[in-house]
């Protein structure tokens, strides 16, 4: 068996890379990918700890996360399409509508 610590290290690195993608890439699609990576990092943790649980709650929870992630990406893509239709861009540097005018 592989020690849980390994999984945790892999998951931390995956989470860092995902976060970096979310923070630095300007294309919304990259950001979505980064979010998926973060989800996966979380899942790795859950599964790694869940293999010690005879009740399989970890697996159940990561199952839920996968579902939610799928739903999230559906909605997010719909929003991306809306944005592209309205603003003709998906560059986050150009989408600055939160700024006070």
């Amino acid at each position, binding site marked *: 068996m592989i020690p849980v610590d*390994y999984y945790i290290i892999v998951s931390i690195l995956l989470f860092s890379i995902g976060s970096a993608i979310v923070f630095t890439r300007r294309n919304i699609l990259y950001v979505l990918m980064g979010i998926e990576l973060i989800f996966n990092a979380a899942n790795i943790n859950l599964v790694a700890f869940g293999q*010690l649980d005879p009740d399989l709650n970890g697996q159940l929870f990561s199952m839920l996360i996968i579902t939610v992630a799928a739903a999230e990406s559906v909605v997010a893509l719909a929003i991306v399409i809306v944005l592209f239709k309205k603003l003709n*861009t998906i560059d986050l540097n150009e989408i600055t509508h939160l700024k006070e005018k």
Partner: protein
Amino acid sequence: MKLIEVVFLFFSIQLLSSALVILFTRNVVYAAIALMSTLLGVAALFVLAGSDLLAVVQLVVYVGGVLILLLFGVLYTYRDPESYFEKKHVLLSIVTVVVIAAGLLFLLSDLSFNYPTLSKVPSDKAGITRAAGQYWITSKILIFEVVAVFLLVVLVGAGWIASKVLDKSKTEA
């Protein structure tokens, strides 16, 4: 080093390098491909963790669903990647990765998990699929129902948002 650890190392390096490709590539199609590789690596890690059911679900949902959706998004919104403002991207990305990873590692290195030894693995040789299926469908049925309704709402809502806007753009044009 045992064989299984070698395999684990291999898949870890494979998924992390694929993730770095996503972080650094300028071509969004490459990024999508790299994402698929990363997700496959994660699925392999699931298998190594004894959770073959989740590995399958990972393949079906992520690789078969989310990735395809993302590719459609790429198709739909494609622009010249050079047009994105990506100055200092590489340096900033590396700094972010290092800072977050260092922080979390530092944090976790201070924590001590009091988890049991791995000798008590619950899964039989046939994997956990049967046990998980019976257990979830009986004791945890409510969660599945809630998730089912949630998915339905998401589907309808996403369709509504997109169609509404399409209609509007049509009338504007």
